[in-house]
């Protein structure tokens, strides 16, 4: 009947982010000297997927009404680890990849355990664990360096059949293997329910703790996938503090652009991915229009403000002013 309208309402944030990205990307490619070529798309994709992975990680935690300020540092730590381990024969490389992903999962699980069982505020807990993760990254790579299995790296950053960017395919695979099962599982629903109304979820007998813990742990895993790809792109490991922090903050921006509510319970990682891609395209747009790169932070800020304002319209309909503060 009217099913499609409910579907549309539910996907509004995601579709909006998708629309913003498509428009921006169309402007970008139509003004690019080379135009819409496989090469341009590949470069854009390789730059975009890094933030997309970290934004997906952030989404999982934000859905539970938390926030993870350590995602950028897990990203950095796993980059440094990969620059040591993802090298050598096929078996050795495979072991390295598994170790890197396992480390990410562990970092996320530690965050989850502290927030859920230690009952600390997510913001404080993840600032602290983020500092610890960065500290370990620094011990691993006091100076930028290391190397990676270049065959694997080139395969995952190149093109499939000469046209499709492999990194984009990898992103899609991660969505299908991690996000889709999570969002449709009981634990995923528990994460949403806890983010929307933890008390109602408790009263309904929802496994809140396990749902939230899974969200934090998977966030660590997704950030590690991002770290792995960073290594594939750069062939090195680099414990760069500024870059880690930037990824954390940009992931929050991408999540908001993607229609995920910072109050929890609402939004999807797909939206956050488009949010991340759109956010990345801002820089490219400035490039094709010959703006000084110095303008980039300002433009990113303005676009973010506009996107957030769109989400705040609901406040005009509130009839009891005390609800503003709920």
């Amino acid at each position, binding site marked *: 009947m009217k099913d499609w309208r409910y579907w549309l*309402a539910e996907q509004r944030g995601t579709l909006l982010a998708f629309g913003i990205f498509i428009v921006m990307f169309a402007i970008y490619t139509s003004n690019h000297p080379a135009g819409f070529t496989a090469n341009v798309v590949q470069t854009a994709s390789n730059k975009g997927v890094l933030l997309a992975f970290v934004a997906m990680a952030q989404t999982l935690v934000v859905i539970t009404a938390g926030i993870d300020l350590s995602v950028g540092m897990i990203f950095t730590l796993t980059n440094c680890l990969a620059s040591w381990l993802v090298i050598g024969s096929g078996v050795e490389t495979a072991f390295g990849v598994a170790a890197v992903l396992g480390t990410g999962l562990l970092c996320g699980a530690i965050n989850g355990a502290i927030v859920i069982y230690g009952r600390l505020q997510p913001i404080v807990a993840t600032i602290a664990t983020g500092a610890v993760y960065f500290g370990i990254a620094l011990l691993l790579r006091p100076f930028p360096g290391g190397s990676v299995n270049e065959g694997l790296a080139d395969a995952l950053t190149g093109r499939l059949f000469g046209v499709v960017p492999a990194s984009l395919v990898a992103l899609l695979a991660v969505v299908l293997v991690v996000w889709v099962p999570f969002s449709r*599982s009981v634990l995923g*629903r528990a994460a949403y329910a806890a983010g929307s*109304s933890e008390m*109602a979820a408790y009263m*309904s*007998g929802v496994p809140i703790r396990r749902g939230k813990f899974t969200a934090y742990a998977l966030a660590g895993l997704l950030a590690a996938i991002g770290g792995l790809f960073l290594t594939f792109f750069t062939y090195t490991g680099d414990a760069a503090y500024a870059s880690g922090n930037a990824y954390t903050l940009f992931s929050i921006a991408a999540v908001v652009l993607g229609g995920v509510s910072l109050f929890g*319970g609402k939004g999807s990682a797909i939206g956050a991915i488009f949010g991340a891609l759109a956010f990345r395209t801002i820089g490219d747009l400035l490039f094709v229009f010959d703006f000084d790169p110095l303008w980039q932070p300002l433009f990113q800020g303005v676009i973010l403000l506009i996107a957030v304002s769109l989400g705040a319209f609901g406040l005009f309909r509130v*009839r*009891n002013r005390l609800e503003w503060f709920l």
Partner: protein
Amino acid sequence: MDGAVPLFSMEGISKRYGGVRALEKAELSVTPGSIHAILGENGAGKSTLIKVMAGVVAPDEGRMMLDGREVTFASPAAANQAGIVCIFQELSLIPELSVADNIAISDPPKRFGMIDRKAQRRIAEEALARAGAADIHPLALVKDLPLSRRQMVEIAKALARKPRILILDEATSALTAADVAKIFAVLKRLRSEGLALLYISHRMNEIAELADQCTVFRNGRNVASYAAGSKSDNEVVQLMIGREYSHIFPAKPARAPGTAVPVLEARKLSWTDRLDNVSLSVGAGEVVGLGGLDGQGQRELLLAFFGVLRGLSGQILIDGKPVAIASPAAARGDRIGMALIPEDRKTEGLMLPMTVRENLSFAALDRLSRAGIIDRTAEQRLIDDMVGLLAIKTAGLDIPVGALSGGNQQKVVIAKWLMRQPRIILLNDPTRGIDVGTKQELYQLMRKLADAGAAILFYSTDYDELIGCCDRVLVLYDGAVKRELVGAEITERALIASALNIRGDEASPRRGANA
């Protein structure tokens, strides 16, 4: 019904919250295939009783038997598992999820480890149909539904869990008459299917229509159980009262009703479905009470005066002149001079981690400062006055206000507003959860402020207080003023009867026997 084996029973259940006894050796037994009504006034222990039953609250002592075996519930989920499902007054729906998601939330159908959305939708449609709410679309988000529809979803959700015992706590209070009729049909069908239903309601006519068995609670104890229809409304009200007066109230000034000059006046105030054409006036030196059952619009009425509600229709007059109060800041301004002592002092009245001094001077900072700089001497003088006037017991002014006792915290809230010397004082159930001694001091203070010329509007869930403190009492029911009681008319019987929207005080005592 007599002689039927109880499906579930509670024996000697007690529960204390701090110094307050919520339940004291309460007993209850529930038989299958019947509707059991629980009655009692505000704070009689009904809510605690069902929270214990539903696994939300663990009792301090006593035991529960299900099918003749002793059971304990560690969580609501455990109670659900045992077949006890409760529909709470505070809704348990998750606003950002769809109706279908909510209905299936405790045990969603799964396929390959993921939630099977098609099966879930079928379950939801079936449950909605059973609840007589097939008009609700299963994909709609709960937050987009009006309150009455949400309540229907709540009932459908409970039915989807296949309960053996279904508890409805004021489940109809948000419903339209048409929905109530549907729900009654559903409840009667469930009874014939052998379910045990526990029905908590303040609406006597509903109980008369539905219940097989009634139990009255008072002061945390079950005081009487009887077959429905065997007692008159009057007798029931008498069972619900029966308390001794335990508070000491200041003497009320003798005054002919209606002689006070109105300072605060409302004409036909309406707001969404919570306030319905409320008109009232409060004069200088008058204490006017707001009575009625909890949640009949009293809180909204006070918020309306204080400039918190938007989309209010009707008129508010101060000193006989119409005013528009756009925010609490405007309400407390010099022209209006209003203060609201909020119900929840921990969230709306105090900043708990901040010091007593800071909390006291918050509301009056504009008066204590010049060009944005706080005059510390004037602040200290005023604070000393207030601490003295209210006898606030604190180890110092620079300790966090959260470290004070409940009674002293409430004094701080009141003192904070008195520092502005308000002309109109709104009190929202200010004595909830504070000790008797402090209560008495507050009663004295209220009268003192009134004598000094303040207009006081006082909402309380404690009938004794309304009787002891107020010159007049307006009883609200369903957002409308149902009765005004003046002077000697303010009796417990009249208050309870009009709160239940029956005219128990005037009916002949023999009416019930004839019926």
